[in-house]
């Protein structure tokens, strides 16, 4: 009985750890994005991995490198 409880506790801990890792990885990926606001009040958000964002994000990284070099 006690052994079962320990096993359940270990499984719960491992599940929580895996969930945390997955969440952190996902939120880390979500950080890269392009948010564009227009004069008419509309806005679009281009996520990392989209064809549109793939041309913009490398330039932003280059801009950051330039200012920090």
């Amino acid at each position, binding site marked *: 009985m006690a052994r079962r409880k320990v096993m359940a506790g270990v499984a719960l801990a491992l599940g929580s750890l895996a969930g945390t890792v997955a969440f952190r990885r996902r939120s880390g990926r979500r*950080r890269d994005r*392009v*948010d564009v606001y227009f*004069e008419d009040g509309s806005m679009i958000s281009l996520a990392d991995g989209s064809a549109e*964002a793939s041309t913009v994000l490398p330039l932003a990284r280059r*801009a950051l490198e*330039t200012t920090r070099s």
Partner: protein
Amino acid sequence: MDATQALSDLKEISSQIEAAVVLDADGSTIASTLDDERGRDFSQVVQELLAAVGRAAGNDEAKLAQAEIATEDGSVFLVRDEQRTIAATTGPEPTVGLVFYDLKSCLRSFAEEKPKPRAKKKKDEADGEA
């Protein structure tokens, strides 16, 4: 307000802003917080970035007003008015609204730049004639 002074004030007000540059409508650099060489390089990348954002957004009907390009290493902000563009870099996860507010205020300080008054000169001339 002097362009360099405006950027200096901006950096003082906003601790999140690492570097900033102001470009004219034709792409020439008005002021920069960076030294000459890095300022030139940054201005060049900002112009490429503006063009790329315009193409990526693909909205032909509305003009781009502002943009944030967020990466894990930091963000690049772009804010435009009729005549100028201000671009700035920050660290990761900045307070977006605050940075946009500070950049718009900085651009407004350029727009509100008033020409030197001429009334005094006219008065001096009138005194000379009398």
